[in-house]
């Protein structure tokens, strides 16, 4: 199995890791110290981050993986995720977008006129609710391009911000891509470049981003995952992932679903 690596640098131990592992590590830091992280369908990298944090925290935070039986304590059916969020009991959730714009609006529905679209995505999932009520929503889109990060989305599945009088206890805190990490400033409704991943550059980020964003004079490089984190991910978490993300677990970590995981 091929493993990407950081550029060799003088005197440092060369840590080899995959892009997926770096992004999971970035997300682990964004999650921080919270009680409950929920992960939606089709989010294997955020799931990796949440489960790795839980392993490191000895069971804390609670992690709810949609579509899992083992990593899901809900006993009230599919609505419990949303009821739980409505109760203020989900601290972190992840959303993506076929398009994401500079105000944090996300589009999971279609490009072009809604009634005559050029491109159709699967649909909004729970974004039209969770983006409003989960305090820390981490946007996650691996493909960082002018096609995905646009000046203005064609369809707002969920807006990055809301008028003062609209009930809103949550919203975006960051956007993670294959090239960089943006933080979101809710008051200004703008992204700010926080760090660029190893092997990528600020110029490249600007070149491939369809919206304006703020940035400091010197943009740090995203730190590499520690050896301990990588070990946890590969040895402990990867087998857990296989239940819900068998393709991902096999492709990234070379782990096949064990029959006992059913």
């Amino acid at each position, binding site marked *: 199995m091929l493993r990407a690596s950081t550029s060799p640098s003088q005197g440092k131990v060369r840590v080899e890791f995959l892009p997926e592992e770096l992004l999971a590590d970035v997300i682990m830091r964004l999650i921080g110290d919270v009680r409950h992280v929920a992960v939606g369908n089709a989010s294997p990298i955020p799931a990796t981050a949440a489960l790795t944090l839980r392993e490191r925290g000895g069971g804390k935070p609670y992690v709810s993986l949609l579509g899992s039986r083992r990593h899901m304590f809900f006993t009230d059916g*599919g609505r419990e995720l949303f009821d739980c969020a409505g109760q203020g009991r989900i601290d972190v959730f992840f959303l993506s977008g076929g398009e994401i714009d500079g105000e944090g609006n996300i589009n999971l529905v279609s490009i072009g006129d809604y009634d005559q679209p050029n491109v159709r995505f699967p*649909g909004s999932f729970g974004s039209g609710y969770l983006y409003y009520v989960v305090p820390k929503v981490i946007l996650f889109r691996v493909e960082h391009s002018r096609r995905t990060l646009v000046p203005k989305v064609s369809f707002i599945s969920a807006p990055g911000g809301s008028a003062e009088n609209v009930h809103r206890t949550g919203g975006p805190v960051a956007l993670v891509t294959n090239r960089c990490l943006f933080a979101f400033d809710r008051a200004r409704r703008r992204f700010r470049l926080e760090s660029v991943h190893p092997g990528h550059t600020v110029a490249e980020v600007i070149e491939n981003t369809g919206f304006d964003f703020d940035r400091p004079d010197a943009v740090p490089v995203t730190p590499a995952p520690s050896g301990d984190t990588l070990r946890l991910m590969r040895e402990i978490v990867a087998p857990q992932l296989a239940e819900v993300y*068998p393709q991902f677990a096999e492709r990234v970590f070379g782990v096949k679903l064990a029959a006992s995981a059913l």
Partner: protein
Amino acid sequence: MPTIAPSVDDAVAAIPDGAMVVVPRESSGVPMEATRALIRRGIKRLSLVALPTSTLQADMLIGAGCVETLETSAVSLGEFGPAPRFTAAILGKTIAMKDATCPALYASIQAAEKGVPFIPLRGLIGSDILAHRPDWRVIDNPFGNNDPIVLLPAIKPDFALFHAGMADRAGNVFIGRDRELLTMAHAAAHTVATVEKLYDGNLMDDPALSAGTVPGFYVDTIAVAPRGAWPLPLLDHYPADGGHLAEYARLAATPEGFARYLDSYVYAKRAA
């Protein structure tokens, strides 16, 4: 009393063309054998409610021309990519789409369960989901102060259709933690369920099993369908058949390939 039908084809016979049918998400017991039976029968003009999302099931029903209206929050093949027949139908405008967000569907089904005409939900304000749902309303929360909130009308399906682990001969269906199946059965006028196997005895007599049971009172018809969710997973029973789903994704990318898929895996049974 619920009927134990001799076959899955018999069990779905009661679902007429034009019915509003609610079906569950991939992880909660998708009735794939029943779906193939409906396609074989050539059911038409379904108003399909996928609670709150769908994968293979909606894609196949749409591809086979069974669906007139689809209300859901997303259709994809998950790890196997976009849902090709769904995508083609939207781009080709061959189905009417009612885009929702997951909790809106759960809440609308709960409204029917409770016999109330509508239910409020937070979120949605300022989204284009709301902008394209003329059947939803925004009111000023009467208990608030300049506090807009969305009201969703109840969704009252004609049929709930799902697959579960087991049922007894009194028609009680064990669903365990897949509680949305109970809500669906409460909300729908009729319920048709397929199950892996029959349970000897009465599920309601066991304090533990009864807690995870849809009472036969709500169930019209049951049929036994071993591996009835295949190629989708049935949690606590079997995983998804990834090889088959990859084949589906490959074939269903074109109308011709999809037709071949149906010939091999759906109509084959009729021919045999």
